Structure formats: structure tokens, C-alpha cells
């Protein structure tokens, strides 16, 4: 590094120094608030720490416990994995469907775009409370409407079989946020491609599959990564509404992490849980990124 520094001209060295100087606030912030907490968290995951007293080094015991002696860890992992598998495809598909609707050139479309985006900016706690009311079994709007058409609605959050789908339903309601990103992607697709395809006799379906989807794959790729991370981190809904119940059917990984860290004062174990989740997300991201070479098409390619 020193040799390459020496090879630089005085002007290039000055430019490099100025660049680092300009970057230094970010670098400092990144080191202090991202790198150091991660490093400390890695260290803590090998300790037993009640926060109040000094950490005690216990080697890999937290990880051994996690994989061999902790049924709650597996339950939290199972629930979170199920939630990702249920909600992620639905959010991707429904977000795209909504974006296609919002992409129509109709009067007042900006109003609808705004309305659909609103759920994405409302506080998670407020949304949770609202859904608690909507899905209340006796007096909630949803079951009242179902009742009106002769269908007996389920107990939603208060039924062990329906609680997880209910949380997934809540998360799907917020697809307006991803629809706006899809919309930006849709509007970047050159109109002449559709015109050319139409001249060649392609129907709507054909244009969708052969032009829209391929040219939208970079946006889908981005959404897949972001929504996947978001799904793994689900917490507020369970914390506010179900507290992980009934019968641990919504005992999400982040809720377990929170309880270990801040209710049981088991910060060492919580750090190990957090690191394991980071590894899962990292591995999934790398896998998606790896497969993207086969299905993501950029306009320049």
C-alpha cells in the first residue's frame, strides 16, 4: 500500500487525502456505530453477561446451547422461517400487481398512489393496534363482513392456526411501499419496446412476460433482498399484539432475541442469537445474489 502511495503524483496524493478527509465523518460514524457494535456483539456472544455485571467468558457455550439445548430457539426459527415463506412471495407478487394497476394512465392516479403508500409510513404500533380491532373475532370489521355473507370468521390472532397468517396479512397490507418502487421500475421501461412488440403482434400477456418482467428483474431482485431482510426482522406485530402466542405460534426470532436481551438480561446469549440471524440473512442474500446471474437482466446487457 505504501509503495502504491509512493507511485502517486503529488497532485494525486493531495486528491486522495482530500477524499479521505471528506469521507472521514462517514468513516468515523460507520466505525463507531456499525463496526464497533458488531465487533462487541461478536465478543459478547462468547460471554455470559447480565448487562449490569462484568461479562464472563464462556467460550462457545451460547452456540452449543442454541443448537442442542434450546427448544425455543428452534421454535422461533421455525415460526420466522414459515413467516418468510408465506409473506415474502405474497408481498412480491401483490406489490407488483398493485404497481401494474397504479401504472395505468387514468385521472386521479396520483391520489391512489398516495393512498396506497400511506400504510408504509404509519407507525408499526399504530398499524398493529388497528389490525387488532379489524380482526377482533366478535366485533371486528372483517368478521362482521364475513358474517354478513354467512361465513364464520376465525379467531385470527387468538387462534394458534390463524395467528401467523394474520400477521402475514398485516405485512401484506403494507405493500404500497414496495409498489412505489416497482412503479419506478415500470416507468423506466422504454415505451418503444412495447410499441415494437405490439407491431410484431405480441398480446398483453406476451408483452408482460417478455418485456415487463425481464426488464423489471433488477427491481424484483432489489425488492426480494429488502423484503426478505424485513421479513426475518418481524417484531412489532408480535410484540404489540400476540406476545408470541397463542401457544408460541407467533414466537418470532426477534421477539425471542428481545426477551433474552431485555427481559432475561441474557445479553451474551442474545448476541449469539443476533449473530446467527445475521449469518442466515447474509447466507440467503449471497445465495440470491448468486442465482441473480441467471434471472436478472440489466438493460445494458
Amino acid at each position, binding site marked *: 500500500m505504501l509503495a502504491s502511495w509512493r507511485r502517486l503524483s503529488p497532485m494525486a496524493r493531495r486528491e486522495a487525502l482530500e477524499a479521505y478527509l471528506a469521507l472521514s465523518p462517514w468513516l468515523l460514524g460507520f466505525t463507531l456505530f456499525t463496526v464497533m457494535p458488531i465487533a462487541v456483539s461478536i465478543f459478547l456472544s462468547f460471554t455470559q453477561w447480565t448487562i449490569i455485571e462484568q461479562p464472563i467468558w464462556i467460550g462457545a457455550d451460547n452456540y452449543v446451547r442454541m443448537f442442542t439445548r434450546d427448544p425455543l430457539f428452534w421454535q422461533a426459527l421455525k415460526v420466522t422461517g414459515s413467516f418468510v415463506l408465506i409473506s415474502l412471495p405474497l408481498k412480491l407478487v401483490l406489490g407488483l400487481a398493485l404497481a401494474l394497476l397504479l401504472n395505468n394512465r387514468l385521472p386521479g392516479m396520483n391520489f391512489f398512489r398516495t393512498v396506497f403508500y400511506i400504510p408504509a409510513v404509519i407507525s408499526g404500533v399504530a398499524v398493529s393496534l388497528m389490525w387488532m380491532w379489524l380482526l377482533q*373475532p366478535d366485533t371486528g370489521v372483517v368478521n362482521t363482513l364475513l358474517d354478513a355473507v354467512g361465513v364464520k370468521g376465525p379467531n385470527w390472532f387468538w387462534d*394458534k392456526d390463524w395467528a401467523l397468517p394474520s400477521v402475514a396479512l398485516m405485512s401484506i397490507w403494507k405493500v404500497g411501499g414496495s409498489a412505489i418502487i416497482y412503479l419506478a421500475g415500470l416507468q423506466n421501461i422504454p415505451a418503444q419496446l412495447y410499441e415494437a412488440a405490439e407491431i410484431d403482434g405480441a398480446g398483453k400477456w406476451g408483452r408482460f412476460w417478455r418485456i415487463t418482467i425481464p426488464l423489471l428483474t433488477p427491481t424484483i431482485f432489489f425488492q426480494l433482498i429488502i423484503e426478505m431482510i424485513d421479513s426475518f426482522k418481524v417484531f412489532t406485530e408480535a410484540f404489540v399484539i400476540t406476545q408470541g402466542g397463542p401457544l408460541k405460534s407467533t414466537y418470532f426470532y426477534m421477539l425471542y432475541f428481545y426477551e433474552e436481551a431485555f*427481559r432475561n438480561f441474557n445479553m451474551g446469549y442474545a448476541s449469539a442469537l443476533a449473530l446467527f440471524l445475521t449469518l442466515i440473512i447474509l447466507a440467503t442474500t449471497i445465495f440470491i445474489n448468486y442465482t441473480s446471474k441467471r434471472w436478472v437482466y440489466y438493460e445494458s446487457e
Partner: protein
Amino acid sequence: MWYRSRKISLVLFALLMLIPFGAVTLAQDVVTIEWWTVSSEEYSEEVQRALVDQFNAEHPNIQVNITVLPESGFTERMTATLGAGSGAPDVAFFWDNNWFPQALDLTAYIEADPDLDPSTYFEGFWNTRSVWQDKIVGLPLGVGANFVMYNKDVFDEMGVAYPSPDWTTEDYIATATTLTDPDKRRWGGDRPRGPFRAIWRNYGAFPYSDDSTTVEGYLNSDASVAAYTWLWDLVASNVTPTPADIEILGTEGTGPIDLFLAGRLAMATLNQGHVLTAVESGVNFGIVPEPQIPGNERYANAWSLTASVWAGTEHPDEAYEWLSYWVGPEGQQFLMQNGHLFPSIPAVLETHPDADKDYVQAFFAVLEQRQVAEWVNAHPCNGTVLRAAVDAWDLVNLGEIGRDDIKATLDSLVEPAQQALDECVARLGA
């Protein structure tokens, strides 16, 4: 002449220079105590500031600097600050037992204080909230407890006698059944919201052995099975709201009080804060302790908040001075008269403006019972093991298991509970 005036100028200059040092010396005589607190229904920010003003006026050498924090984030902030080892307040609520290692041992202070006598506090609250590992780590501020509130108008309408303080768990189901009226969408009573609170303890059930080594024979004991069976019978009687009915009406445990005030719940297990709400709403109500099991010792789910001095304080004497004022007779009297606090000192509590009312007398009687918290506080792993007990409670509460399956269900939970206990004891001690 010139020399003389120059000399005078130098003396004046020197005196001027000394003024700031003098000021510093004076300032050092006044010690500032940082106090973190929360605002609540029992003591609003305004009332607490008035108490501080009164203290500051009476103690010119101590200035208390009050910081009122939102209750929701108080625990996290205190935990982080105490964990950091610096920047914690001199005096604060130490309401989490895990913070006690960082509380100043007040034993010597209290022994030397002629104005503060531990025996003047409710014994149960002193034992559960002040004494920890043979040290006095704080003073108990205020008292609270669960009890059953009943709507007298509903009882009168149905021609049912009011429950007596010595009623039993079987009486509870029978009374709730009589009071239930589906046409009026009214339930007779509610369900206990968690295992191993007063009723479970009244049955004689414990989650594990007193020496924190064994779950087998405790979580699945005959007493525990009897407690869960009683819950099963209560659920099956269809005279109580479902968990959904309760939860939907509030996330802060307000569901039962809302139903109770609306006349849809004839009996509900509530607390002294709800009593104030019921009084304001003009509901005609009475109070009885949670039902008992004949022949067994009777418990109450009661609580108080520990107020402590941080062990890292630079001004322990002044911090104790403020703490003993705030949580002593004077402070609690002030918070009772100007707010809604129920003091933890019986002599002060007896001067409560409503002390002559029946429901307040009934509340006082509950405060004299043994407390669930005695065992819970002495067993730091209680919460970890209760996760398993909650599973069984959920299964019963949701109608997922039959009455005859209770024993087998509890048996199946022994192993995970034992694992949780072993892990926790290694970490937090027995």
C-alpha cells in the same frame, strides 16, 4: 502616592480574582442530586415537581434535579446506563431485581436514621422490595395488588349475595355462572391471566423446588394439576370472556376494566388503579380477595416499586437524604394527598381520604396477605421456567386439551422447564 494607589489597586484586583473561587466554594456546599422518575396515574410530573420544590426549599444544601422519563422506555434506559457504569442517576426507581447489584447498601444508613424505621412499612413489601441478599437495597414506594372487583348492581339484579372475603375457587365458578347472561352479552367473571399468580399459589403449586434444582414433582404436582383443572372448569363453563375479548380492549391490561365498567363483566380481577377509574365512573362496586382453597395458605399478587440510591453516586449521604424524604412518611403522605398514591406505610395509608370506605378497607386487608412476590423474588429463574407453565395455561385457556389431558401435558413440559432452569441457575444462581 502613586505607589500607594497602585498597591490599593493590586489588593482590589487580588480580591476581585478571589471572588470566583469564593463562589466555587459556596457552590460546592450545595450538592445536586440527579433523580430519575416516571409520571404515572399515582404521581403525576406536576406533583413530583412540587415535592422536589418542597424538599429543595427545606434543604438548602441539596438541590434535587428531577428528570421525568416515559415509563415505557425507563427499563431499557436504566439497564443501559447501569451497564455502562457511569452516568446513572443518584436516586431512581430500581424496579427490576437485576439492577440490585448496582444499588447502594442502605443498611448502615437506615440503622443510623432515627426517622426511618423499617417496621413502619408493610412487612410483605419491605421483605419483597427492600431486602435483597441480606442487604437493604431500597425503600418500597406505594403499594398495589390484584383483587376481585364485583359490580353490586349486577349482583342485586340477579338476587345473588355479594361474595365474602373467605370465598373459594369453586364459589367463584358458581357465582360467575349465575351472573352470566348471554342475552345481555354479560359474563359472570374473568379468567386469571397467567399461571402461578395468586390462585395457583393458593392451590399450593410451585414451578420448581425451593432449592432451584428440580421441576419434576412441582410443575406437574397434584396441586398444580388441581390449579389447571380449576382453570379448565372455568373455561369450559363459558362464563368468562375469551382471551380475544379481553385483549382487544387494550394492550395495557385494560380489557377487563373496560368490560367491567361497561357492565359486561360482573366480576373482574383488577387493581387499585382500576378502583380509582371505577369511582370516577360512578360504578357501584365492592372488593374481595382472590378466592382461596380451604385449608391452604392464602396469597395476594401484590407489588410495590423499589426506590434506590445508585452505588456509584458521588453523594451517598445527600442521595439517601432525598430518598428517605421521597419514600419516607413525608413524601408518601405528599404523593397520597396531592396524587393517587397508596403508601407502603400503614400509618400513612390509614390517613387516606377514603380510608373509611368499605372497598378501601377491603384493599387494606389484601395488602396484609402473604405475597406471591416473596417466592418469585427469591428465585431469579422463576420467569425463565414460567415460559413452560404459560404453554400449559395457553392450552387450557384456548380449549386445546381435555380435562383428563392436563397431567400428561404438565408431565411433557417438565423436561424443557428443567432445561431452562438448569441454564438459568448456572447464569443467575439459585
